[in-house]
Structures are given as C-alpha cells and as structure tokens.
C-alpha cells in the first residue's frame, strides 16, 4: 500500500502547485512597478498604480458593469429554467420528450463554444429577418445565449441533489392531500435550495467569464469584460490586466469559503435535529 500512496500524494501536491502558480504570479506581479510584467522592479515595488490605472480606465469599468448586469440576469433565468428541467427529469418518471430533454440539457456543457456561438448568432439573424426580433445584437442577445448554456449547469447540479434524496417525503405529503405545487414549495424547494444557490453561482461565474459565445452574439456597441481583456492581452501582457485578477481571486475565494462554512453549519444543525428526533422516538 505504501508506494502508490506516496506517489499519488506527491503528484497531488505537484498538481496543486501547477494549478495555483499562475494565479499567484498574476497577483504578485500586479504590485510590480515595471511595465515589463515579468521583471520585478524591487526599488519601486510594491505599488498600487495598476489598480489606479484599472479604475480610471472607462472602457474596462463600463465593460465590467455590462458583464455584471448580464451575469445577474442570465444566472437568475438559468436557475429557474435549469431547476424546472431537473425536476422534470428526476421526478416525473417517463414522459414524452424526456430523452430529448435529457440530451439537450447536457449537450451545451460539452459543445465547443465556437460552434454554439456561431449557431446562436445565425439564429438571431434568422429570427430578426423572419419576425423582426431581436433588433440587432447586443446585451439582450448575449443574455439569451448565456441563459442557454448556463441552464445546463444548473440542471446538472440540481439533478444530482434531487437524485440524492428519496421521494418518500414528497410522497407522504401527497398522500396527506397536499397539491403538487404546495409539495414543491414546502418540501422539494427547501431541500434543493442549496443546489439551486450553487447552480446560480456557477451560472453567474460562467456568464461573467464567457468570451467566445459573447464575441459571436455581441453587437458592435456592446463589449463585455472578457472581450475587452482579450483584445488587450492578445497584444501581449499588460500589467493593469494583472490588477484585475487580484480582486477576482479574492472575491471567489471569500465567496467559496463563506459558502463552505454556511453549508457545514447547516449540515451540523440538520444532523443535530435528526439525532434529537431519533432520541425523542426512542
């Protein structure tokens, strides 16, 4: 048992270093004074000047604001649609169109982004020709496209949560005469709420981060943050982009840590309640 254990743990450590080294280097060099991103200017560093440059760059600030609005809308719509799809797939048994729905919900996850971007743009162009809507491309078409690929992720997350607990609670409520909508609201929804929240967060992140699909379906006037960043870094490294990484890494790590703590607390409370209930029964 010893040798594979040592070997795999060494690879795990190396793998984690590999995953975090680039992120760390972004953060470190965002405080570097030199324009040459990779040469540390010890005499004048650390400095916050790239952060100041970032905040005074109107193009980046506007793009960030647009990206936030799109991500909020797309994640919320995707959470609703994705949850509906998950409930239908896990709880409704066989129905007509089930195989189609199952296939359609997972396909966007693996579909290469260039194909989805192209397909969605051609759809919007064809729709505008046929019914005059949507008028041109822009924030609206980006949001519609983001909802479509984000809802797949929500479905997967909620689906695995729904499959993880059994139906007896819902069936009991049904037997006691609760209408399906009440069963969903009072029993199913509270149980899958954590999954919906993590699905929403995942959808928000994916929308906020999407470059390729947005590039296809964005009009000339609307640039999301990744589009602006991409056009900058295509020409090589630029230190103010490094400065963008630090707040994003910070936001994500605090968000994840908070979510983990909250989940652990809930889980503990739930376990205590189960124990109390068991004790009361005995």
């Amino acid at each position: 048992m010893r040798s594979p254990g040592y070997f795999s743990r060494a690879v795990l450590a190396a793998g984690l270093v590999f995953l975090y080294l680039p992120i760390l280097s972004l953060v470190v060099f965002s405080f570097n004074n030199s324009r040459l991103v990779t040469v540390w200017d010890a005499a004048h560093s650390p400095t916050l000047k790239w952060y100041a440059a970032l905040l005074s760059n109107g193009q980046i600030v506007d793009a960030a604001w647009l990206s936030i609005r799109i991500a909020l809308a797309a994640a919320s719509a995707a959470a609703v649609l994705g949850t509906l799809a998950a409930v239908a797939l896990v709880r409704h048994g066989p129905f007509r169109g089930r195989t189609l729905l199952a296939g359609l919900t997972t396909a966007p996850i693996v579909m290469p982004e260039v194909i989805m971007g192209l397909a969605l743009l051609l759809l919007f162009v064809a729709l505008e020709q046929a019914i005059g809507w949507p008028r041109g491309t822009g924030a609206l078409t980006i949001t519609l496209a983001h909802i479509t690929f984000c809802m797949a992720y929500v479905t997967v997350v909620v689906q695995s949560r729904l499959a993880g607990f059994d139906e007896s609670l819902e069936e009991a409520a049904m037997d006691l005469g609760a209408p399906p909508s009440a069963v969903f609201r009072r029993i199913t929804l509270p149980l899958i709420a954590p999954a919906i929240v993590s699905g929403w967060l995942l959808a928000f992140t994916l929308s906020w981060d999407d470059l390729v699909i947005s590039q296809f379906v964005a009009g000339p006037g609307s640039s999301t943050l990744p589009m602006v960043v991409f056009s900058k870094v295509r020409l090589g490294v630029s230190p103010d982009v490094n400065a963008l990484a630090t707040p994003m890494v910070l936001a994500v790590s605090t968000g994840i840590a908070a979510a983990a703590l909250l989940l652990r607390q809930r889980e503990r409370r739930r376990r205590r309640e189960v124990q109390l209930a068991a004790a009361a029964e005995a």
Partner: protein
Amino acid sequence: MARLSSASGRRLVAGVPLAWLAVLFLAPFLIVLKISFSQMRLAVPPYAPLLAWRHGLPAPQLHLDNYAFLLTDPLYASAFLYSIKVAAVSTLVCLALGYPMAYAIARSSPARRTVLLMLVMLPFWTSFLLRVYAWIGLLQSDGVINNVLLALGLIHRPLVLLQTDFSVYIGIVYSYLPFMVLPLFANLEKHDPALLEAAADLGARPFTRFLRITLPQSVHGIAAGALLVFIPAIGEYVIPSLLGRTDQLMIGRVLSDEFFENRDWPVASAVAIVMLALLVVPITLLQRFERRELEARR
C-alpha cells in the same frame, strides 16, 4: 392565480425548459446545417437563400461547394488533424496527472477530502481567460520560468516556450485538469478497500493490486474524465489564440477566422458541421456514461 391541474402543471415544468432549448439550442443547429449548403454573397445576411423561385416554380439551391472546398484546401484537413492531436495528447497528460491526484484525494480522510476537492475546484471558479493569460507571463522568453532557469544557471539562453505545441498542451491541461479529477474522484471514492486488503493478504504486490483491481474498476471514471477534456479541447479557441503557434491553427480558430475575418458564413457553417460530425460519437458516449452515473446514485 387559478390552480393548475396536476397534469398541465407537470407539462409546464418539462415544457418550458424543453421549449427554450428547442428554440435556442436545437433550431440554431438546423440553421447552421442549412447555411452550410448555401452560397456566400455580398449582402445582408451574407448568404444566398436555399430556395429560389424560377418561372413560378420552386428551385432548390443546394450547394455542396463549401464541403468540397473543405476537402480540397489542405488548410482545413491539417487544422482538423492538428486539433485532434492536441486534444488527444492533452487528454493523456491530464489523465496521467489527474488519476494519481484523484486517487490521493479519495484515499485521504473525509475532512481533508473536502478541502482538497475545493482546492481542485477553486481555479475553475476564477476567470479562465485570466488564468490562461497568466501563462504568457510565465512562459515568454523573458518570462518567470526562463528567468528562474537562467538565474539557476541551468540554461544559458532563454528557451522558446511560448507559441509552441508545448505551451498549448500546458494551457489545455491546466484549464481542464479539474474536469479529469472530479469524475475520477467520484469513481475512486466508491471502491471497496476490502478488495485491496484481500488481495494484499493473498500476497499481491501493490502494483499488481492497482493493475488488477483499482484500474479495471475505474474504467468508467477514466472514460468520463477523458471525454470531458477531449471534446471541448477539440474546439478550443482562447488557449491556442493566446499561447499557441501562429503557423498552425486549430479548427476552432479557423471557424472563427472564416466568420469574422473572411465573413464567409457558409464555409464557417460547414466547418461547424464537420466538427459536430466528428464529435457526435464522443458526445453520445459521454451522455451514456453520465446517465449511468446518475442512475447509480439513485
């Protein structure tokens, strides 16, 4: 609000997402298929209609020109083959790195396991674009890696690391490693340690136990992880654009160039259709594995 009857409520629950996906996911592919048979023209939109009317009669205008063009111009074949090679090599490297990682996580204590899994997932939540961009600073000729190697005296001239096959592999392995580790972990976690103990009692050496017990049991996890890396890697656009070679394009870049630079929508659509045809088998396989996985959990 009037209370919906149970049956129509159920129909609504499945129907709304189904309708959304039919319009915004299924229909677009039919349009791509249609336009791939069309001809480019300088107009808005820049393709000719498939159905023309001649003397009051419908005259279908189906063209296979775009596909013939893809076959005759070696640029497309080479881009397709190169994409397959890059995706295959990256998938193998991901597996070689991801398998031991997933194994080590599955063998650690439950409390540690949560932390380790979170550490693997965390980069996935931070901007993909910025993480790929970070590698430019690490790999370029006056970048961090070259500077460190020069300072250590291991090399005397900077190595050319950026814009090579190597940098594309690094970028893809780095971005998709979590997709390999997670399904493998989900599989390895379920293995019964009693089997390994029994084999050890019977005198099997560690390597034999791995080869005869652990590996055969994890085939499904390996397949799921490999497909989750291979499929998106084929169409990858951002990584080769930022880190890759300039003399050899991947197919995702070719599609995007046809669309944005040449404004040739029909050829871009034909490239997309050929890509899809290439990916149909792996995508169907992946869906089958995932369904089995989900059903096993119920």
